[in-house]
């Protein structure tokens, strides 16, 4: 349920949804859940198509704000015939990102950006080193989340401070009602999107039905354990090799978990050049890869998959919360569990850590 103040509310009957999305798409890219092959992903809205709401997207929406591969700038070495000993370097900036709307993201997607925000806003540098690429997209993108009705067996947003109808981190919350969708804006950006003739005023009754739907969705979640002790428990197990070997036995060291995760924000920089010209690329990195901490000397402080899985879980449930007011950098979306080819379950690892720590 939305903890935030609702600044405006509207109703859209299902028949008008395509027309409204088309209207939103004027001058912006509108991302919606879309069926592609046998999966559902966030893709630009194509007029004529309806968003896919019968299945939840396998990936998170993070690529809209944090592209998988982003050219930061391009470069070209230029020779000057008058000064053969010198070489110039021509740099060109990449284009400014445009306006975007994500319609039908999940609550956990929106909360995922909470993990990004302080880090990319320069938290570790007292605000000096801000990531302009991310921040610009964050500013240019509006998020309309759609409240979930039933949990998947892998969902645990409520363990991490979220909920199936939370609007935290979003600009508006959409709730399915009979024949249409109630839209509740929680930010000015959200309210601006609701200024459309395609939408009709919402009633108190509709808002009450939405509230009932949110309450039912919260009730449908299984009870949640307390993870209060997780940061200390994980730190306490830092040197317990046997524990991490057992937890990681099934892990294949691929990137599926981190690449689908709404909160994994690590990246890599490479210069992709061809002859004298090229591009500096920022691409997603993954701590599950052996290359992640490979140092130039050839030394790798995280030599095996146990050390790498320890980092993934430790970062989300210990190191991050210890410097960010106790907030986990996991929003409990369960995507890493669902798409892990080995069914590695991050919930279970955190619970095992709490138990192991309690036992010693």
């Amino acid at each position, binding site marked *: 349920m939305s903890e935030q103040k609702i600044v405006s509310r509207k109703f859209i009957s299902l028949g008008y949804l395509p027309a409204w999305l088309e209207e939103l798409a004027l001058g912006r890219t509108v991302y919606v859940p879309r069926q592609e092959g046998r999966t559902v992903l966030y893709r630009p809205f194509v007029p004529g198509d309806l968003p896919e709401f019968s299945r939840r997207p396998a990936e998170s929406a993070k690529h809209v704000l944090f592209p998988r591969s982003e050219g930061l700038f391009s470069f070209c070495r230029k020779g000057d015939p008058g000064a053969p000993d010198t070489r110039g370097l021509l740099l060109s900036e990449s284009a400014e990102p445009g306006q975007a709307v994500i319609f039908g993201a999940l609550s956990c997607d929106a909360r995922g950006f909470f993990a990004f925000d302080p880090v990319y806003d320069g938290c570790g540098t007292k605000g000096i080193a801000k990531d302009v690429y991310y921040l610009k997209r964050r500013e240019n993108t509006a998020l309309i989340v759609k409240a979930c009705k039933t949990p*998947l067996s892998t969902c645990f947003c409520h363990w991490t401070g979220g909920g199936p109808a939370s609007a935290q981190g979003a600009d508006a919350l959409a709730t399915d009602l009979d024949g249409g969708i109630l839209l509740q804006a929680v930010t000015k950006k959200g309210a601006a999107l609701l200024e459309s003739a395609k939408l009709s005023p919402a009633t108190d009754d509709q808002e009450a039905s939405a509230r009932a739907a949110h309450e039912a969705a919260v009730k449908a979640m299984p009870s949640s354990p307390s993870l209060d002790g997780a940061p200390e428990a994980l730190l306490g197990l830092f040197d317990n090799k046997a524990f991490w070997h057992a937890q990681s036995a*099934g892990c294949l060291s691929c990137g599926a978990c981190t690449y689908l995760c709404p909160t994994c924000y690590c990246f890599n920089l490479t210069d992709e050049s061809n002859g004298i010209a090229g591009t500096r690329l920022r691409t997603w990195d993954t701590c599950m*890869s052996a290359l992640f901490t490979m140092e130039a000397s050839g030394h790798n402080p995280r030599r095996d998959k146990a050390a790498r899985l320890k980092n993934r879980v430790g970062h989300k449930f210990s190191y991050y919360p210890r410097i960010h007011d106790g907030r986990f950098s996991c929003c409990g979306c369960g995507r890493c569990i669902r798409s892990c080819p080995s069914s590695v379950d991050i919930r279970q690892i955190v619970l095992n850590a709490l138990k192991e720590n309690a036992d010693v």
Partner: protein
Amino acid sequence: MSIQEELQAVIKEALPDVSCVIGWREGPEPLRAAPLFVRTPADADAFRSGYFAVNNPAVFLPEYKGGKVGVVVKGCDARSVGQLLAEGLIRREEVKVIGFPCNGVIDVDKVAVALAGACDPGEIQAAREEGDELVLTTPSGEIRLRKTAVTADKCGRCLFPNALDADVFVGDTLEPAVSADDYADVAAFEALSLEKRMDFWEQEMSRCVRCYACRNACPMCVCREHCVALSRDPRWLTQSDGVRDKMFFQIIHASHLAGRCTGCGECQRACPARIPVLLLKRALSRRVEDLFAYRAGVDVAGPPPLLSFALEEPKIKERDW
């Protein structure tokens, strides 16, 4: 005793000799088992075999080289073990192979299709087998699916449901359902024009997130931490995520697996973007079967054809004189 109980007993018996026995346990979702690593007799109680035990445990074997490890295998998994042995990637005396007759496994993607939007497969709360039906408990009531509609394609063409070369075999051997793999899927695809095939792959590969789950789930992918896709020096592949860059990697994977791929399908099952990458590998397996009469993980008496050299190949015409 059920096959599962018999296997649990065999695992417990094997334990004193091995550091662990790899098998399956219930996973976080009713339709998906997870790998199990049995180190103590009590661990064996969690062992589950059957329709949901999809993962190929052979992928873990090279990690245990140098000590002795046990592994419970379906027929297809046993082919991976056979191929790993044929290539010297594991040692016969270091692995204890426990086999059983396999009746086929589920393809969760097919369940998603069969549900036809009734619910998200992730909403399934419980699943049980009833004769030739799969009964699913969902938030909107019970749904019954015919198992034939949701069984993995590889099971429909499986010639070796009984693990080859097992040290212990539990249960009675099964007759395979078919007598040959006709590669009908590959033939149908290759009947399309080159342009159509390229369009298909460009469309499919556009979903690739470059997580390399396909590579890491493959028991025969041996380079592991030294894969061309990640090496920076030399830099074989770019990190940019163009469709062609992604396709390039798949073609590299498929060609490195030519004559080594056993068709276990783990690459495709692991892909979170649900890209049918097995089709590429099967196209090459079909060629290798035609040219060299070699089936990976089965005809393992000699070295794999592409890891050896013959002056004259009977089916490859190199010159006219």
